[in-house]
């Protein structure tokens, strides 16, 4: 790998590891100190490697430099040292030298514990996702800003507030006790799923970046599965669901970057490897007695990856159950679509009109679709309403295309 690519690559893979370990040593209130220190380490790497060449083991070099910087800081910044030493003393019997353990085992533990700390119900979801991208995924502020269609200042402010909130709440970087894992992991999964969706339904035009968000969400979910205490059925169901969705990543946009609807996708572009992985995790999820919303969504996503002609008959009852567990407008609309596939458009229109989602552009897109062969005027009216309500340019293009086709 060229040096020019090497540093960004290492930044993506190593920043999060060192930051997690250091934050765990320093305490969550010094998260930013840890971030800055690791940032400095990378700056030093860029300078030194440019002059002296890349060391034989670049990651180990980064670990050593970061470790020394941390020890220096603890030695020279007496106030900071006192705070940290006090905190460490409370936590362990260790009294003098603070150990900074950058072994694989400790890196993994620190990252998992960090995941629980960041995905805390006390901070707003979009701040959780921002912090997760920064701390757990090693994204730069710029990238986060692009992903959120925002700017650096806004993201910095949001992250600052989130860090402050973590301090106020005195969130500890630790594993929740076994008895509490079930309570806490729900929020972690919600955040990981939001992160995935941020990439999957992303409005950013940067396809590489949105795919990265999805892959990061999957990587973090996989970390939970790798860890024995969090390898739970619904965690496997979530990863299965992500694999099934991600399998259509290439098929759902065309060369021009426009959205391609499910019915119009080239099924040969569906990624079979991801589908097989999804099936593997879905089978792993099929234990225990709890049928979570992730199980149902994974099962729905599974049927979407098949070309079985009866799949809608399987999908409809799954949506029924999903809605009974947890209502969401998108599930209600998708259920109505499945209903149309099984019982025909007239029946689905009757049900759709009860949904009370007049302000939702997807509601009008669906009705536009359902009315196409029944009442062209109605179809056009709904598509026009959808066009007015949507803010996404990809959706606008798609709807305009339909209107043109219909009025031709």
């Amino acid at each position, binding site marked *: 790998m060229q040096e020019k690519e090497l540093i960004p690559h290492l930044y993506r893979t190593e920043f999060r590891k060192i930051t997690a370990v250091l934050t765990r040593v320093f305490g969550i209130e010094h998260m930013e100190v840890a971030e800055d220190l690791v940032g400095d380490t990378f700056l030093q790497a860029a300078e030194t490697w440019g002059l002296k060449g890349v060391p034989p083991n670049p990651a180990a070099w980064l670990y050593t430099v970061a470790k020394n910087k941390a020890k220096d800081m603890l030695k020279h910044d007496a106030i900071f040292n006192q705070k940290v030493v006090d905190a460490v003393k409370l936590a362990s019997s260790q009294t003098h030298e603070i150990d900074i353990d950058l072994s694989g085992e400790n890196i993994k533990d620190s990252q998992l514990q960090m995941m629980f700390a960041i995905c805390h119900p006390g901070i707003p979801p979009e701040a959780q996702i921002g912090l997760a991208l920064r701390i757990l995924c090693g994204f730069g502020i710029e990238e986060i800003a692009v992903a959120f269609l925002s700017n650096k200042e806004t993201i910095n402010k949001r992250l600052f507030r989130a860090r402050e909130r973590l301090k106020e709440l005195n969130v500890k970087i630790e594993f929740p006790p076994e008895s509490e894992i079930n309570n806490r992991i729900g929020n972690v999964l919600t955040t990981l799923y939001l992160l995935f969706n941020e990439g999957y339904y992303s409005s950013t035009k940067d396809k590489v970046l949105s795919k990265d968000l999805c892959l990061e969400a999957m990587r973090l979910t996989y970390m939970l599965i790798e860890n024995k205490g969090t390898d739970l059925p619904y965690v496997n169901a979530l990863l299965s669901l992500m694999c099934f969705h991600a399998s259509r990543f290439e098929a759902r946009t065309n060369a021009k970057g426009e959205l391609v609807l499910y019915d119009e996708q080239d099924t040969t572009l569906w990624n079979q490897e991801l589908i097989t992985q999804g099936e593997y995790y879905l089978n792993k999820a099929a234990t225990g007695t709890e049928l979570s919303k992730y199980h149902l969504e994974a099962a729905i996503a599974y049927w979407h990856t098949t070309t079985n002609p009866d799949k809608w008959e399987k999908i409809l*009852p799954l949506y029924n*159950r999903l*809605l009974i567990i947890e*209502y969401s407008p998108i*599930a*209600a609309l998708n259920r*109505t679509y499945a209903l149309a596939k099984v019982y025909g458009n007239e029946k689905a229109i009757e049900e759709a009109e*009860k*949904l009370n989602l007049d302000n939702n552009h997807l509601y009008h897109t669906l009705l536009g679709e359902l009315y196409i062969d029944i009442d062209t005027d109605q179809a056009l009216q709904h598509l026009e309403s959808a066009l007015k309500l949507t803010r996404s340019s990809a959706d606008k293009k798609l709807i305009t295309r339909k209107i043109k086709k219909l009025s031709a």
Partner: protein
Amino acid sequence: MHEFVMIFRNESVGEIKLSSEGMLTVSKDWENWIGGIAAQNKLASTGARLGGDGKTIRPGNVVTNGPYAEIKEIIGGLIIVKADSIEEAAEMANGCPILSIGGNVEIRNVIAMNN
């Protein structure tokens, strides 16, 4: 929004012997009907499905078998829905699968606790 209980009653016809396909259609109809209410975000509780076993207890330790008191109708189950008015709840009961097999739906308003 207020909550209303929907009580499903049907005449007791003893053990109903349905083919497995018949059973499937019945449960599909119920699932779709309840799914339709849930899709409107108006399902407050899936309530309970009641079986045929029952006893009725009266003062003086008088116990009779069977879930029915005087009438031959038995309660088959109940759900709780959210609606702005009892009229709206009644409207929602249209299409309930029990109506197509001679049963009926009773709707009652729920009185909130601490009121």
